[in-house]
């Protein structure tokens, strides 16, 4: 205990020196801790970014840069066949969209009208009314579900618009639902249009020709989505009897993996920066400990003359290094947590809609590990040197 008291008084008597020594450690630990906090938030944030994208849907489209584009095109009539032939596929819908002026009295705006099935691609819950259902699809009903921004523009007075109609050119659609506003912040993944109508309605009103831009398929099991994608592509090739046809697939897990990949790279870079700054900080700590040992040579001589054993002198300087590192890491941890919480509160919250919890335990363990590792790596030698001093030489030291 006396070791801690003495170490505290030594470190406090050289406040500026102690602080400067710790700066490197503080920066390194703060960077690593902040990235840990953001890493934990990021998992939730990615989900938030893509939150409205259904995770059991995938889109297949022909690769436009292939020789036989015409054969590769997915046709409307293919959808039913694929749905029946490929196990696990529960729905198949054309992916399309048309920009048109949509009006409600004086209020109007250009919006993308897109086909939707009873299993929506956009999983946002409804604010008013309901989603498009199977009976709408079966009947090719003239109904529409509005995304929130279209609703705000077309119904500026607010209120429940269900039962009212909007016009797109000559077509009249009965509004049956309004989606809640999306939570997306900076990365707006929006494949669905602002005005969703039953895909059967879309086919009869807007689809020209039978070739589709792409098709969306819904699987029963999101876990086997990659296998389903491969099965669908294989089925199309078999139907055409052309195994050379090229298709691309897109689903939520691909985007998630992409963002995760970018973030892992970022984490690695910050971890490397942290490691380098910890190395530099450690060398600084070793340097200042050596200075401290040199300055206190005489004191060490007195302690040894009085009867301090080697291990006791070693312990004293080791604990001093540990306190220096511990304090530095604690301050760095606090700054890192603070930075992380700030970014959570300012940016992440916009994406996910809630402040993600801070990874207290994980970051404390990391900061504590750094303190111990840096102490062991850089505090041992100065302490060893102090313990090895010859008492006669040390007492003679001026």
């Amino acid at each position, binding site marked *: *205990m*006396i070791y801690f008291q003495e170490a505290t008084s030594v470190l406090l008597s050289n406040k500026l020196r102690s602080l400067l020594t710790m700066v490197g450690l503080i920066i390194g630990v703060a960077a690593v801790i902040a990235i840990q906090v953001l890493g934990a938030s990021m998992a939730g944030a990615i989900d938030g970014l893509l939150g409205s994208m259904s995770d059991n849907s995938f889109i297949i489209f022909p690769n436009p840069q292939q020789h036989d584009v015409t054969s590769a095109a997915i046709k409307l009539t293919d959808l039913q066949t694929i749905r029946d032939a490929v196990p696990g596929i529960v729905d198949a819908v054309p992916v399309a969209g048309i920009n048109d002026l949509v009006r409600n009295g004086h209020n109007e705006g250009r919006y993308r009208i897109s086909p939707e099935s009873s299993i929506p691609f956009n999983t946002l819950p409804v604010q008013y009314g309901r989603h498009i259902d199977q009976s709408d699809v079966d009947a090719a009903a003239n109904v529409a579900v509005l995304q929130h921004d279209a609703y705000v523009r077309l119904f500026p007075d607010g209120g429940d618009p269900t039962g009212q109609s909007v016009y797109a050119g000559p077509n009249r659609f009965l509004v049956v639902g309004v989606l809640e506003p999306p939570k997306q912040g900076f990365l707006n993944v929006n494949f669905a249009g602002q005005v969703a109508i039953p895909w059967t309605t879309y086919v009869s009103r807007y689809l020209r020709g039978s070739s589709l831009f792409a098709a969306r398929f819904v699987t029963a099991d999101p876990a086997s989505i990659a296998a389903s994608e491969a099965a669908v592509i294989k089925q199309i090739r078999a139907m055409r009897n052309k195994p050379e046809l090229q298709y691309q697939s897109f689903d939520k897990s691909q985007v998630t993996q992409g963002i995760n990949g970018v973030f892992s790279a970022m984490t690695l870079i910050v971890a490397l920066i942290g490691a380098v700054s910890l190395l530099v900080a450690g060398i600084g700590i070793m340097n200042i400990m050596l200075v401290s040992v040199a300055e206190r040579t005489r004191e060490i001589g*007195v302690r*040894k*003359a*009085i*009867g301090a*054993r080697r291990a006791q002198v070693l312990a004293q300087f080791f604990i001093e290094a540990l306190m220096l590192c511990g304090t530095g890491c604690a301050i760095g941890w606090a700054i890192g947590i603070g930075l992380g919480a700030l970014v959570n509160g300012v940016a992440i919250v916009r994406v996910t809609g809630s402040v993600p919890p801070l990874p207290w335990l994980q970051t404390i363990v990391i900061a504590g590990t750094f303190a111990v590792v840096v102490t062991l790596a850089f505090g041992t030698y100065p302490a060893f040197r102090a313990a090895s001093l010859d008492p006669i030489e040390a007492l003679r030291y001026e």
Partner: protein
Amino acid sequence: MNDSGRAIDLRDIHKTYENGPLKVPVLHGITFTIERGEYVAVMGPSGSGKSTLMNLIGCLDRPTSGTYILDGVDVSKLDDNALALLRLRKLGFVFQGFNLLARTDALNNVALPLFYAGIPVKRRLKLAQQALENVGIGDRGHHQPSQLSGGQQQRVAIARALINDPAVLLADEPTGNLDSRTSDDIMALFSRLHESGRTIVMVTHDENVAKNAHRVIRLLDGLVVADMVTEPAGHLL
């Protein structure tokens, strides 16, 4: 363990410093004994080897050859840790420059050897307070060394040297940094300690200080040239 009653028993002590290929002999065969309760001054000009002898007696160093028995323990062959324990249990050092720890109050300075001896903190501080009272500065326990006069600092150092109840109190020019009046006070304290039965070995080059001892050993060129029992003049001079 100690049936001889001898505090210090030096037999044919040689000490040679090796500085690379250069061998510097300093002590050429020192033999003397100091009984318990003696008050001995070791004198000699600089270069006579008295510092080296002091380091050997203080268990800070080992003789090149010869036998040194401190309070019944043969010191000559002990390793560093055993020497440290011996210094802790059987020796008390008083230095010319006081050598108190800065940033540490008098009480904790005095208690330091007890910390290394593993005595619990409450008992440490209680014993340290008693030791300070014994040297007449019981009211200065919470002063930092920088807040104390030279004489007071040396009293703290003496209290620290005595706290482990050592077999021998070693003093190296204990009045070297003090004015004459304060020196007299410290010498009076040493005499009082001697009267209460302490074994004291004091290195000095000051004849007036040496007069306080009741025996003077004179060194010259690494040999004992005189060993006389004098009339203890004490603090009356």
